[in-house]
C-alpha cells in the first residue's frame, strides 16, 4: 500500500523532473539573451548609434564604439568561409565519389576527428608556427609586389609580422574546414544510391553527376551545413585571439591587425573594471548573440534535426 503510494508520487515527480530539465535548457538560452541585453543596455543607450559606427574604443576616457570588432568579426568569418568552403566541398566530393574504397573510411574518420581538436591548439599553432612562415614567405613578398596606390596596395597593407586579419581568417578556415567537409560528406552519403546510379547509368560523367544530381539533391541541407560553419567561425574565440593582433581600430588592409567581438571580450573582460567598459563588452556579446543566433537558426531550419553537431 505504502509502496504503491510512493510509486504514484514518483511517477509525476519523474515526469516533472524531465520537463523541468528541458525547460532549464530553454531558460538558459532565454536568460543568456535577456541578461546580455540588460547588461549591454547602459552602453547601447549612452552611445546610441555611434556604438556601431564609431571606432573609438577607449577604456581610459570610457568611450566605446564597436565598429572595429564588429567589422572584424564579419570580415574574418566571411573570408574564412570563402577559403574553407571550396576546399571542404571538393574534399567531400572526393571522399564520396573518387576516393579508393580502402582509403574512404580512414580519411573520412581522420577528417571527423580533426573537427574535434580544441581551438586553442589551432590558435597556438597559428601564432608560433604559421605566422612567422606566413610573414616571411607571403606577406612581405606580396606587400613588396603591390604598388602602394593600386587596389592591391590598399588590400595588402599592414605590418608584415604574421598576425592580422588575414592570418586569423586562414586559421579560422583551417578550423572549420574539417567540420564543413564532414557534414557535407555525411549529406552526400545520405543520398539514395539509386539516384546516383541512375545518373551514371544515363552516361553522366562524375562532374555532371555531382553538379546536376548530387548538389541539387542536398542543396538545402548543404546551405545549412555551410551556415553552421559560418556560425562557428563567427563565435570562435581562441583560434582568433592568438593571431589577430588585437587592435581596436578598423583594419586598414588584410594584413593589418584587428579584433573580433569574441577576441576583444576574451582579452578585456576579466580585467575590465569600469561599469561602462563591462557594459560595452556585454553589448558586443549581445550583438554577437543576435548574429550567431540568426545564422544558426537558419542553418538548423535548413539542415533539419539530426545532422551536424
Amino acid at each position, binding site marked *: 500500500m505504502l509502496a504503491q503510494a510512493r510509486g504514484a508520487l514518483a511517477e509525476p515527480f519523474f515526469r516533472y523532473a524531465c520537463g523541468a530539465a528541458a525547460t532549464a*535548457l530553454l531558460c538558459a538560452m532565454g536568460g543568456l539573451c535577456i541578461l546580455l541585453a540588460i547588461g549591454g543596455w547602459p552602453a547601447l543607450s549612452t552611445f546610441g548609434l555611434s556604438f556601431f559606427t564609431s571606432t573609438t574604443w577607449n577604456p581610459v576616457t570610457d568611450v566605446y564604439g564597436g565598429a572595429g570588432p564588429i567589422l572584424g568579426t564579419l570580415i574574418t568569418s566571411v573570408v574564412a568561409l570563402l577559403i574553407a568552403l571550396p*576546399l571542404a566541398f571538393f574534399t567531400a566530393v572526393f571522399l564520396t565519389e573518387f576516393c579508393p574504397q580502402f582509403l574512404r573510411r580512414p*580519411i573520412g574518420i581522420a577528417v571527423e576527428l580533426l573537427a574535434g*581538436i*580544441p581551438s586553442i591548439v589551432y590558435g597556438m599553432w597559428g601564432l608560433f608556427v604559421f605566422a612567422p612562415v606566413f610573414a616571411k614567405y607571403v606577406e612581405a613578398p606580396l606587400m613588396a609586389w603591390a604598388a602602394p596606390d593600386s587596389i592591391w596596395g590598399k588590400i595588402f597593407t599592414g605590418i608584415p609580422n604574421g598576425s592580422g586579419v588575414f592570418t586569423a581568417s586562414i586559421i579560422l578556415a583551417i578550423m572549420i574546414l574539417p567540420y564543413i567537409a564532414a557534414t557535407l560528406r555525411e549529406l552526400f552519403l545520405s543520398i539514395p544510391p539509386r539516384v546516383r546510379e541512375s545518373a551514371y547509368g544515363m552516361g553522366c560523367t562524375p562532374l555532371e553527376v555531382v553538379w546536376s544530381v548530387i548538389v541539387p539533391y542536398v542543396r538545402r541541407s548543404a546551405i545549412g551545413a555551410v551556415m553552421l560553419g559560418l556560425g562557428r567561425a563567427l563565435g*570562435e574565440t581562441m583560434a582568433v585571439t592568438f593571431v589577430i593582433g588585437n587592435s581596436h581600430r578598423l583594419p586598414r588592409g588584410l594584413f593589418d591587425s584587428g579584433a573580433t567581438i*569574441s577576441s576583444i571580450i576574451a582579452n578585456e573582460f576579466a580585467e575590465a573594471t569600469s561599469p561602462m567598459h563591462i557594459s560595452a563588452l556585454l553589448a558586443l556579446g549581445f550583438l554577437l*548573440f543576435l548574429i550567431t543566433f540568426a545564422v*544558426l537558426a537558419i542553418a538548423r531550419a535548413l539542415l533539419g534535426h539530426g545532422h551536424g*553537431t
Partner: protein
Amino acid sequence: MSGFTGIFDRRGRRRLANATFVIVCTLATVVALVVLAIILASLLRKGIGGLDLAVFTEDTPPPGAPGGLRNALLGSLFLCSAAMTIAVTVGMLAGTWLAEYSTDNWYAKTVRFINDVLLSAPSILVGLFVYVIAVRPLHSFSALAGALALALIAAPIVTRATEDVLRLQPRALREAGAGLGTPIWITIRRILWKASAGGIITGALLAFARISGETAPLLFTSLNNQFFSLNLLKPIANLPVTIFSFALSPYEDWQRLAWAGSLLIAFTVLSINTLVRILASKRRRT
C-alpha cells in the same frame, strides 16, 4: 560529318571538364590533409619536448623555475567532472522528456530547436552569461562558475544523444513494460535507459571531449589559479586557461609547458573520439 565532330568535341569537352574536376577534388583533399597533418606534426614536435614526468608531478611554476602542470591537470579534471555530473543529469532528463513524454507540440519543438542552436552557440557567450549569473552575485571568480559554464556547453550534447538513442528503441520495449503493469518511469529507468546506455555514454564521452579543451568560457568564470585548489568558491587552476596565458607569455619555459599542455589536451580529445568510434562500430556489429 560535322555532326560527328560536334559530338566528338562535346565528348572531349566533357572528358576534359571531368578530368579537371577529379584533379581539383583530389588536390583539395591533399591540401586539407597535409595542412592538418602539419598541425598535428608540429604539435607533436613542440609538445613532446616539454613532456616529462615533472609535468604531472609539479605545480605551475613562476617564470624561470622548473615546474609542471599538476594543479592545472587536476583542476581541469575536477571542473570537467563537476560539469559532466550536472550535464548528464540535466541532459538525460531533458532528452528523456523530448523522446518519451513530450507530445511533439510547439513547446517540444521549441526546446529541440533551442537545444540544437545551443549545440553550436559561441562558447564565449556562455562564459559571459555565467559571469552575470554566478560570478557577479558572488563577487568572485569560482570553480563553481567554471563548472556551470562547461555544463551548459555539455548538456545540449547529452540531451541530443539521449533523445536520438531513445527514439531508436523499439516500441515493443515500451509495450512490454506497460504489459507487465510497470509504471512508465520505471520502464524508462530500468528498460529504456538500460537499452540506450551505449548511446548515452557515447554522447557523454563526446561532450567530455568537447569541454575538456574549451578555453573561452573559463576565462572569466573559473579564471585560473597558480596553486592547487578544489575550493568551489575560489578560482581554480585549469589546463586551457593555463595554456592560454603561458603561450602568450614571453618566457620560453612557460611556452614549452603550454605546448606540452596542448599536446595533452589534443591527445585526450583524439583518444576519446577514437574510443567513441570503436564503441559505436562494435555496437553496430552486435
